[in-house]
């Protein structure tokens, strides 16, 4: 029946020594995943969009569609 005496001290320290490195590692992984999964593609998408962007053409299209209040549509 004699059981081993259970651990009476150092319980918090043991828990921290186990969980803190895992917590730090997972946080770094989460940050890296967000950076390379979300922010880098987003920056790339914006760069690609504005590389091909013709400002005048888009402005004229928007003007013809009639969304501006200060610029009249062409042919008026």
């Amino acid at each position, binding site marked *: *029946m004699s059981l081993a005496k259970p651990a009476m001290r150092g319980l918090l320290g043991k828990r921290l020594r186990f969980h803190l490195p895992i917590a730090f590692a997972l946080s770094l992984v989460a940050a890296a995943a967000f950076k390379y999964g979300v922010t880098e593609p*987003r920056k790339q998408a914006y760069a690609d*969009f504005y590389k091909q962007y013709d400002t005048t053409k888009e402005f004229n299209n*928007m003007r013809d*569609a009639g*969304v501006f209040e200060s610029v009249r549509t062409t042919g008026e």
Partner: protein
Amino acid sequence: MLATRALSLVGKRAISTSICVRGEHGVAKVDDYALPAYFDRRENPLPDVQFVTELSAVQKSLKEKEKGSWATLSNEEKIALYRISFKQSFAEMNEGTKEWKSVIAGMFFFIGMTGLVVLWQRKFVYGPVPPTFESEWKEKEVQRMLDMRINPVEGFSAKWDYENKEWKK
């Protein structure tokens, strides 16, 4: 001195029935709930009193044996001594109940009742929705958003093909 000796003979919980008289005055009767009580709590591992108050003859002899060397006690005797002092072991007192089933059932029931109330409200309480929800209005709204190039990089207008005038596949 005599009074306390008499009290210890009477037994630990029976103090309420005996009143010690000192001088000419009686002491107030002690009610049961005012005495130290036994309870199984994880945060209070050693209660103020032992569980079994009136020991049987077997238990009394066991308690006498406990005063000697504990190596002579068998395992069953040790368990019997434990059960004299405590009602439930830690494993027994910590085990979960089946209460969660009632909790979940209650949750579903009240969510269902709320759903019925909401449906009734939709039919009998609320008036009609604004005209901005009609399909023609929504079509004009979408067309204006595309004309204004709302979120052209990653969002709304990015999904519209301006050359072919249709949604991108």
